[in-house]
């Protein structure tokens, strides 16, 4: 047995230098390897879905169930006397809700890695540190993006039709995808903060359910009592759902687009940075 044979790969020797150079070097190093390491970690997480397809159950069955329940159980009552087809109204809401559930798995996975001491191995490797979170975020976001098309296919079976212009219709899934990428960072922050898979799972529920129901996801905001309307009006979910709805069905986009863009930026830049920073601070 010979572990060290000639010409084998060896890490390159880089002599350490002054603290300032070290700090600059760390930043350059982080960026240099970020893409490769994130891809590796995303691959790992996608393999998890492949080996454990039942974890995709809610992503796959969720839209079928929600479209069925809301369209047939509530659809008659909500849609009655209105000038739109309720299924057309409902689909963007279900899309966002289901994708929120999907990307909220990000934090659960991160928390369980932290819990198992799995992260110790990663932190002892010379990899880009942000890649552990980034990999999970990218994996769940990718799954959620693909599931947009699945949900739309089911919706069309339920009788949903697009009435918007071609370009907005084509771009709508992208908006959902990017928004959910941002929410995935929020979930990552939850995971890093609670560091316990069960707690992360529970907080997911308490974040997602109120945010989606207290918005224009399932019913027009005007039907709510005043105080609730006030909340629903500022709820970012309302804005992103309305944006997607108008992209699919035609209607004004401008104001919704700006507010949605603001939230996306806040989630990706603000929350993403905070999550990464919290992860680095763990010791």
């Amino acid at each position: 047995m010979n572990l060290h044979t000639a010409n084998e790969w060896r890490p390159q020797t880089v002599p350490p230098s002054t603290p300032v150079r070290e700090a600059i070097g760390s930043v350059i190093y982080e960026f240099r390897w970020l893409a490769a390491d994130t891809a590796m970690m995303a691959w790992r997480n996608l393999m998890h879905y492949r080996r454990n397809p039942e974890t995709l159950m809610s992503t796959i069955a969720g839209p079928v169930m929600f479209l069925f329940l809301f369209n047939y159980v509530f659809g008659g009552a909500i849609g009655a006397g209105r000038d739109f087809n309720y299924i057309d109204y409902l689909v963007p809401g279900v899309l966002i809700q289901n994708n929120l559930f999907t990307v909220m798995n990000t934090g659960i996975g991160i928390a369980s890695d932290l819990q198992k001491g799995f992260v110790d191995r990663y932190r002892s490797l010379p990899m880009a540190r942000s890649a552990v979170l980034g990999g999970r975020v990218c994996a769940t976001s990718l799954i959620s993006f693909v599931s947009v098309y699945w949900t739309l296919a089911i919706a069309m079976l339920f009788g949903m039709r697009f009435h918007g212009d071609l370009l907005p219709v084509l771009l709508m899934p992208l908006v959902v995808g990017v928004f959910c990428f941002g929410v995935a960072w929020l979930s990552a922050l939850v995971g890093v903060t609670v560091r316990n898979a069960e707690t992360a799972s529970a907080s997911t529920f308490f974040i997602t359910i109120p945010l989606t129901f207290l918005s224009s996801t399932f019913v027009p905001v005007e039907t709510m009592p005043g105080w609730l309307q006030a909340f629903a009006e500022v709820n970012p979910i309302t804005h992103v759902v309305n944006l997607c709805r108008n992209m699919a069905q035609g209607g004004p986009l401008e104001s919704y687009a700006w507010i949605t863009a603001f939230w996306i930026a806040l989630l990706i830049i603000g929350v993403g940075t905070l999550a990464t920073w919290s992860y680095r601070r763990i010791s």
Partner: protein
Amino acid sequence: MDNAIEVRQISKSYGKVVALENVDLNVRRGSVMGLLGPNGAGKTTLVRILTTLLRPSSGSATVLGYDVVRHARHLRSYIGLAGQSAAVDDLLTGRENIHMAGRLYHMPKREVQKRAQDLLEQFDLVEAADRSVKGYSGGMRRRLDLAASLVANPPMIFLDEPTTGLDPRSRLELWDVIRNLVSEGTTVLLTTQYLEEADQLADEITVIDLGKVIAQGTADELKHQAGSEFIEVTVRDAEETRRAAGVLSNFAENNECDINEEDNIASIMVEDGAPLMVQIVRSLDAEDIAVANMAVRQPTLDDVFLALTGRTAEEAATESEQDQD
């Protein structure tokens, strides 16, 4: 530079719990250092500091010349860590686990593939290589974890309780693997609660207890610190054991004789065993006690721990657990 590890006055506390207190440690390049201590002694804490996972509260340490805090990023390329709980991904295959580790060390893809195959062969995991780790036994997981930590040929490797939870056969196998590593020139720091393991593998042993280094040296030196040899006399029954003990205590350093009633063994601590043997046999013969077996025994590390701390390793562990509550 001859030392792979130099630890200077490292302390670490978690809130009120002091996990390490002014620890000093040198590990020569190419040697095996055994870090020995009961549960809660601070072994994992020290390993985590040396592998850049944890910052010390005070003091400094270098590994392979790199400061563990200031040059952490560089250092990570040259060390391997097999932590206390095997950090292998259950849903990936053995090969995928090694592959992932190699890629995260930033090794070229082809290099990783070749290396993964070599390691799987060395660690006797070829058959299981493409099955998911979920179905692996405890011993296989440990071996895989070790293989993954060796993928980049690190010149320094940390093993935190590598054989805890393994059956005796797997333990012996793992010992062989570690010996092989050492023969290739890798420096190893391993922690263990098993005195025998440290004795078997380590060139030098550091005993820590409640966060402090209480002894350091080769296994022989430590045994010498316990100071003495033991003479053990086995007789036929309990009654004779008691009578033999009466005779033996006259020869003992401390005039005391330990009795093991189950196996009918009476044992005493003496300065130098061999010259006393004849006298003891004569005295026992005079009392009409038939000797079934008689031996001079070197102190084990268990005896050493007892001599150093006044407690057996087991008692110390229970105590530390109670401290926590």
